[in-house]
């Protein structure tokens, strides 16, 4: 657990360093993107939170079987708001996949119920 936190902290620091570089470069004129992110954020604390969420999402994607290199680009492609949502709910958000297994599962459950309530008798044969 401590190892994971260390990795998260280091990754977050790297992202943060990158992020700060881009914001200081545009001092003077406020770019459209800088304006929009300022609208959504309270300050540097939000930068840190976003960096931590990004590292967290990346780690979760890898643990769910995504190729580590792809996980980096995928976490980088999400906006701050998207990151916050995904980081907290990776396992609860709808994942569109059209699982045909679910249909098989439904049929099995129905058959099981019918079997247990004695309406049918197919599983005792084996």
């Amino acid at each position, binding site marked *: 657990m401590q190892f994971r936190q260390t990795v998260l902290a280091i990754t977050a620091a790297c992202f943060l360093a990158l992020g700060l570089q881009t914001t200081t470069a*545009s001092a003077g004129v406020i770019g459209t993107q800088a304006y929009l992110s300022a609208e959504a954020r309270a300050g540097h604390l939000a930068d840190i939170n976003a960096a931590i969420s990004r590292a967290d999402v990346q780690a979760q994607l890898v643990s769910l079987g995504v190729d580590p290199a792809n996980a980096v680009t*995928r976490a980088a*492609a999400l*906006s701050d708001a998207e990151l916050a949502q995904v980081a907290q709910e990776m396992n609860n958000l709808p*994942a569109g*996949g059209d699982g045909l297994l679910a249909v098989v599962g439904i049929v099995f459950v129905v058959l099981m119920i019918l079997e247990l309530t004695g309406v049918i008798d197919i599983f005792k044969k084996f």
Partner: protein
Amino acid sequence: MSSTSSRSSSRLVVAALSALVGATALTGCTTRLPPLPEDPRRELASVPFFPQTIHQCGPAALATVLGATGVTTTPEQLSPLVYIPGRRGSLQVEMLAAARSQGRLPFVLEPRFAALQAELTAGNPVLVLQDLGALGIRRWHFAVVVGFAPDQDVLILRSGTERRRLERREQFLRTWQAGDYWAAVLTHPNQPPATATGSSFIRALAATERYLAPESISAANAVALARWPADPLVLLANGNQAYAAGQLTTAISRYRALLAIEPTHLAGRNNLASALLDAGCPRQALAQAEQAASLLPTDSPLSAAVNDTLVKARAAAPVAATSTCSAE
């Protein structure tokens, strides 16, 4: 003898129930729909079709909507961007992020059938999230709505392995409701969707900017300005665009137009000050910079930029007597 007959009758029951449950899960409990011939007046017939393989409805649906906007790609190419093996599916936000990485602007529609219909009418196929499950078991599925026949009350979808799946509106709404009526369109940066606002368009553009060529961004800003000439965010983006291209007079006039609509717009005020300074108008610049600084909330991420402008304007103002200011 009686045991054999009871066994065979129970088999019959099993077969009937299995068929019923299977049919329910697959079709969502519909009676058979009459055939609906392809008709370009109610359906976007040229939208490509990519039949999905198991669990891959996300990449397939994404390739479909991207293909309709002129991006040549395949579900196999998109799968590494959106598919999560451990969830056996794809998340909505990742579908949107992947669209951005392909240079297309994603827009989540208002959760109303009317919005979906408006986009179809405008020629945009609509990506939707449906729950095709039954008996309380969720079965999330991405599909693409390509048409609607109001007289039959039937939607036409590219879905799963079906190129032209027909669904009664009532049935579609039931499956669509579970995912909070989530729907999205992807558009080329030059073609804002029918239901977009100036603000939603600029936000989508800003989030996609890093994947777009500078010419595409300026063309998109110009399209936005023509369609929403009085939207503050559109004016700010166009002012910034002109400023970055060194067109100071245009930039100044966009910022002024923005401030006429929203006088307390901090970024607009600051950028006007900065542009005036570069245009050789330090006195006007100082007045604007001071106003911007007075609008600054405490702990604002914009304070560095605003203070920087103020310092520069203060340094330049005393030598302004002989300035060549032309931006009045």
